[in-house]
């Protein structure tokens, strides 16, 4: 073709390309604050040159693809770190709630009620026939039982709260896997020609994968069609091909260790997968509920059983207090009464017979020795220093429990803080690679606009030249 028309065609191509470039830049600017967005770049290349007597002459510019700038390997690493952060964040949040249960500053803590309990028995041992001392023993013992029962109930409530969080978390998981599967389809069909990139869909899918790994640690890889396969635990597939597998949350049954609480089941068999989850918020919640809180409840139970109620599994073994109390004698001669009733921390109470008549409190060791005999009361008061709990005293066991909770919270806080810093570093790196810099986009805008103006100038010049040509041949 003639070179004048060729000039127009080159100008047109340039105009379109620069316009498209400005459009892509505009998209970047608009999405500067969109989470998960990777900046896009328009790839331009020269058109194939035409052979002329003076050699190959270029035919202008053409746009090839819009490509997003991102680091492929970073995505997987970020998902893993997100999962770790999710786990410690969930554990920290749940444990901080538990820490409030063991608050010892208000005077209603285990430490205070236990001290008052021991003191009341000592006062009784100095005045075994005193009505006031007897009522005080009943009252302080009931306060101790109330405190232990309340803490146990609070721990159960914390577990129930985690159950609710797990259930809602699984709903989020199912929603996200559905979204990922949907995006898989879109990406596969958009890229089926092999020539274009489904950039925005990929960005959204990456974001969904990151959100998913925050909740539950995943393994993911992309197959040949551009679809992502997502699995959790030990190879339990959630998204594959066009299929999704939704997790369910039935209540676990005995004799499972998490009986009575929400379990996570994969619909394949169906099979419970709670024990296979090691990262993500799910792992944090499950670990806190089934290991940490369950452990605290066991310790509290052991304290209550050894001190007060006795062990229902071994009914012939009485607790420390009950052994002494049942062998003693009350002011009215009554004997054989347990002081505390119940099976453990959950239902520990002072025997209602005692509450009804404190004269039944067995302060004396021999039947004929009432009312002045206080040897039994003294023996019970001396339990304060007895090494009954794994080589420590009851006070030690209670204090160690509080300290253990504090240690666990501190550990979760410190891991969470470390992970947060780690993830912030990766986030930063991702931003550096894929983030939009407004100054850079401004420069690009100016750049493309100048090119557009030049191309437009070129077309108008070509037009003038054509006019000249036409007028020449009038």
């Amino acid at each position: 073709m003639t070179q004048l028309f060729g000039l127009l065609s080159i100008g047109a191509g340039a105009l379109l390309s620069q316009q498209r470039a400005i459009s892509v830049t505009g998209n970047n600017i608009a999405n500067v604050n969109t989470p998960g967005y990777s900046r896009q770049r328009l790839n331009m290349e020269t058109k194939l040159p035409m052979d002329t007597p003076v050699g190959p002459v270029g035919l202008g510019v053409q746009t090839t693809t819009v490509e997003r700038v991102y680091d492929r390997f970073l995505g997987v690493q970020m998902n893993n770190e997100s999962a770790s952060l999710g786990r410690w964040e969930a554990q920290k949040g749940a444990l901080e709630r538990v820490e409030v249960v063991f608050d010892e500053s208000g005077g209603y803590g285990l430490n205070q009620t236990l001290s008052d309990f021991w003191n009341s028995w000592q006062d009784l041992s100095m005045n075994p026939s005193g009505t006031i001392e007897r009522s005080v023993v009943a009252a302080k013992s009931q306060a101790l039982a109330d405190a232990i029962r309340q803490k146990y109930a609070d721990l159960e409530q914390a577990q129930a709260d985690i159950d609710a969080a797990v259930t809602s978390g699984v709903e989020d998981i199912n929603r996200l896997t559905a979204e990922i599967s949907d995006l898989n389809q879109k990406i596969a069909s958009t890229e089926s020609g092999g020539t274009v990139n489904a950039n925005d869909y990929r960005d959204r899918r990456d974001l969904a994968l990151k959100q998913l790994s925050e909740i539950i640690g995943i393994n993911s890889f992309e197959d040949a069609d551009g679809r992502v396969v997502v699995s959790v635990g030990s190879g339990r597939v959630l998204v594959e091909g066009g299929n999704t597998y939704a997790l369910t949350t039935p209540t676990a049954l005995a004799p499972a260790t998490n009986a009575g609480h929400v379990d996570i089941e994969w619909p394949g068999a169906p099979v419970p997968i709670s024990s296979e989850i090691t990262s993500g918020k799910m792992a944090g919640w499950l670990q806190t509920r089934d290991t940490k809180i369950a452990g605290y409840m066991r310790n509290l139970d052991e304290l209550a059983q050894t001190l007060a109620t006795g062990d229902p599994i071994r009914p012939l073994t009485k607790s420390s207090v009950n052994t002494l109390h049942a062998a003693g004698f009350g002011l009215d001669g009554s004997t054989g009464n347990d002081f505390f009733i119940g099976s453990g921390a959950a239902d520990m109470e002072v025997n209602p017979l005692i509450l009804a008549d404190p004269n039944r409190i067995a302060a004396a060791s021999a039947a004929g020795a009432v009312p002045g005999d206080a040897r039994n009361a003294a023996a019970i008061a001396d339990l304060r220093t007895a090494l009954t709990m794994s080589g420590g005293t009851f006070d030690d066991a209670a204090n160690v429990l509080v300290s253990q909770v504090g240690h666990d919270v501190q550990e979760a806080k410190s891991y969470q803080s470390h992970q947060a810093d780690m993830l912030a570093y990766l986030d930063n790196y991702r931003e550096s690679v894929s983030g939009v810099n407004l100054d850079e986009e401004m420069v690009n805008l100016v750049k493309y606009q100048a090119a557009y103006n030049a191309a437009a100038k070129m077309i108008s010049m070509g037009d003038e030249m054509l006019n000249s040509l036409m007028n020449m041949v009038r």
Partner: protein
Amino acid sequence: MRITQNMMSNLFVRNIQKQTEAMLQRQEQLVSQKRINRPSDDPGGMARVLDGRSTLVAIDQYVENIKQGKSRLEITEMTLAQVDDLVQQARKLAEVNSDAEITPEQRALAAEKVKGIYDHVMQLANSRFGDRYMFAGYQTDRAPFARNANYNATYHDSPPATPDPADTGSFQIPIADNVKVSVDADGRNYFGDGATGVFFELQKLINGLENTTDPAAGTAAIRTTVDPLEAAHVQIMNKRSEGSPKLYRLEASEQYWTHFKPMVMEAMGRDEDADITRVAVELNNLRTAYETSMAAAAKIIQRGLVDFLG
């Protein structure tokens, strides 16, 4: 490294959060005056603080016990001093009236005096600490000693209870972990049981003084009470001297606890109390850093190339 606006604003937000968190923690310490406001602030320290609290409560209880114990010992001592006095009086009366020259009228007068002494001693033997009889063994709700018209004394001889010969009874005072000071409460160790001891001798004395039918036998009876009354006096003295080392021990323990308690509180304070000066200085520094980073960020995050283009 390529920088974007988001990186700068994220960094700013993260730093602000860290700084405000640190400031909040210092503020909390200033308000509560404690370094440990929850177990996770310092788990080891919390355990030590809780231990310290238990110890302090136990110390207070021991001091209370010791105070009660001292009261009881002092009352016992006072009572025994009076009894001792009376027994000395009776012995003198016995000595004087063992002379065969004393007339029956004088003897009758002496008998009245001795009867008075007998009842007074019995009243003292039945004295109480609060609402419990001090010399009644474990039967603290019953007066231990009683007499009939013939001045025959009995120790817990009223129905339905019969005294348990093994009931020695004692008042135990816990002064430290598994350490008790015991005070004898068995009246028989102080006053005998009516078949021996001070009441028995006083009864013999009364009978001897009132024996008008056979003055010679009466004189002999009176003479035989002099030495036993001396022995009763010695028995009382022995019991009194038992009390004094116990009292000493109680006072020494009270002193010990009173000195020990501030040491425990100081040790707890080292763990628990916030160093107010240091916290205030740290808070000041943090606030300065906070304001500085905010000022710096304000300058940076507002500007962009777009402000300078035409």
